[in-house]
């Protein structure tokens, strides 16, 4: 079994603290390229900016398996300079605007720190405080002499932390998938041709994976992502049966989401692999959401796909929470599954 130690945690920290908003994934791309080059047989950056990696398998025509994790994160784009350090911004990807006010953000290549402020409570009315603040009314404040250019990207400034059994960080979605793919490459199975797409622009419409799927033309594909866990208590004490996934219950295997029905053969294979190897696993409650599997499934003449996710709480917020154990178990479920894959799995 593979383990999660200091090197793996340090890499995830570096990945999570990077600023890599959809369409401007340079920081994560550089980290990925540096990590994969010593281990890959082929590395290329495609037309959209995704990093595509191949590790040849043994034998004449090994099963070609594509694993995908997205490098981009939700965030902001600076769109106008209001003067005196105030900047208008647009949200990139799905962020609940209620997470924005009162937060520190980092802007641009230098990670210039700014804040998204709010009117002091003293100047608000009780009626006003019942309504969420519109993004239109917010500004990124870089200080009275702060400078930024329209087009620069920004994201939450929260720093990665390991707290007890948990990871608390921005962008666990999907840097944890990126970290898992890198680890799988470093421990690549010989029985398959391992293709990895570290894809761009997932958060704004699964764009990078669509062309990566075409490029690799795989026999099957697995989207490795991070899925919401809504395992919080109900305020009135009723049972919460819409948790999606639960932290600490292992990798979440998908059966269906809004963009795909996961290939039942692959779902079954992953479940059997988990049971046989005593790896904790859970099924993500079907419905809603989407992963790059949806885009890859429809490339060329079609690709059997499945999604596996590390659960996290508080999607697209300044601090998400995941369990190190779930990360480890996801890595091992995938590693074991890849090692045991044969062409029989997706025979027509």
């Amino acid at each position: 079994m593979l383990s999660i130690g200091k090197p793996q945690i340090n890499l995830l920290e570096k990945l999570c603290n990077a600023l890599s908003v959809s369409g401007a994934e340079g920081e994560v791309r550089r980290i990925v390229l540096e990590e994969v080059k010593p281990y890959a047989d082929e590395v290329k950056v495609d037309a959209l900016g995704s990093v595509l990696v191949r590790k040849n398998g043994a034998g004449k025509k090994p099963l070609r398996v594509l694993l995908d994790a997205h490098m981009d994160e939700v965030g902001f784009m600076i769109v106008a300079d209001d003067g005196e350090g105030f900047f208008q911004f647009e949200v990139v990807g799905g962020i609940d605007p209620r997470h924005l006010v009162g937060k520190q953000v980092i802007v641009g290549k230098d990670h210039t720190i700014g804040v998204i402020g709010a009117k002091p409570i003293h100047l608000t009315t009780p009626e006003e405080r019942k309504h969420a603040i519109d993004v239109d009314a917010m500004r990124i404040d870089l200080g009275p002499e702060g400078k930024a250019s329209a087009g620069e990207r920004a994201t939450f400034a929260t720093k990665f932390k390991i707290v007890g059994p948990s990871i608390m960080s921005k962008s666990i979605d999907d840097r944890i998938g990126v970290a898992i793919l890198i680890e799988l490459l470093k421990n690549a199975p010989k029985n398959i041709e391992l293709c990895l797409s570290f894809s761009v622009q997932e958060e704004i419409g699964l764009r990078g994976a669509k062309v990566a799927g075409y490029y690799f033309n795989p026999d099957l594909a697995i989207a490795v992502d991070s899925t919401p866990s809504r395992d919080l208590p109900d305020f009135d004490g009723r049972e919460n049966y819409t948790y999606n996934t639960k932290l600490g219950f292992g990798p979440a295997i998908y059966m269906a989401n809004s963009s795909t029905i996961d290939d039942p053969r692959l779902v079954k294979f992953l479940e059997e692999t988990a049971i046989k190897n005593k790896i904790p696993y859970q099924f993500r409650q079907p419905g809603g959401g989407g992963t790059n599997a949806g885009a890859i499934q429809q490339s060329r003449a079609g690709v059997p796909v499945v999604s596996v996710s590390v659960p996290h709480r508080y999607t697209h917020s300044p601090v998400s929470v995941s369990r190190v154990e779930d990360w480890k178990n996801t890595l091992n479920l995938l590693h074991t599954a890849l090692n045991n894959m044969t062409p029989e799995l997706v025979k027509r």
Partner: protein
Amino acid sequence: MSDILPFLKSIISVSGLSGFETPVANLIEKKWTPLVDQLTRSRLGSIHGLKKGRSTTGIRSADKSPRPSVLIATHMDAIGLMVSRIVDGFIYVTNIGGVDSRVLPGTPVLVHASSGEDLYGVVVLPPANLLPDGEGSGAVALKYLMVDTGLTPSDVSKRVKVGDRVAFNTEPVEIAGGCVSGHTLDNRASVAALTICLEELQSKSHVWDVWALASVQEEVSFGGSYTSTFELRPTIAVALDMTFGRGTGSSGYQTFPLGKGITLGIGPSVHPHLHKRFKEVADRIEIPVDNDLMPEHSSTDADAMQLIAEGIPTMVVSIPQRYMHTPVELVSIKDIQRAGRLLAEFIASLEADFIEKIIWE
């Protein structure tokens, strides 16, 4: 002028919520001890630093008549949260002081746990379907928000108890234009300014005694300034606090630009003669000041101090601050220095018979 930033960063990096000011009080006491002649704590925990004035006869021991005294009040307490109940490891909270719950979702916090540990956490917004109908959309009320520490339910219940404090945990940062941003700059930035004032007074002659007050519980009840002003019975009293900075969502007569100077209060909480003297001193030493209009309340310790015993002439001096009571307050360091210097010059300007000149027209 010494670099005040390291001290300011240190006092906004320790705990000190209203009623629980000891950690920050210890830092302030350490900093002030060499700057004053005596330092004591009030029954409620406020810090009283006394810097004695110069005897009018020039011989301190021969001077038996009590010197007049000026009290400078800077509250050292902070707004924050308190644990109200714990369910499955999730911590529900209530507020200490004025907190707009809309700034909380996603905010990093420290839970000052009964176990003695400071636990990292984040305020979280529960999914709407786990809240009563209609409560999950729009602004979500504080009672529905929770703190997640990343720990397991059993670890949380072993460490955290109802009544434990939860403080904002935004890291202090310097940002463009000579500004510092972080939580609790209200009112630790004023504590820093008063420290600058005490440093300046080391090389200045002043007739009046000076009481430097770091008061407790301003954010909830003015409890510290009420009681310390009674105990110290100063001749006049000045509250140094924050005022609203002009910025996102904040405009109009109550707001002031950052880095362009400090403000002098005008209103029922301010004795007009004190305002006049401050203005004269500011003009003389070329510190830009603006008038902060306070038609009814100043919402500072001055509101309490003026009502002590037979009444005390009070003044309000303020430093503009953006985003007051949020985790990302923002002030200009230059304005902090200006406030410290203006206070010192004001104190030095006080002649022995100044109080006799304070007469109502």
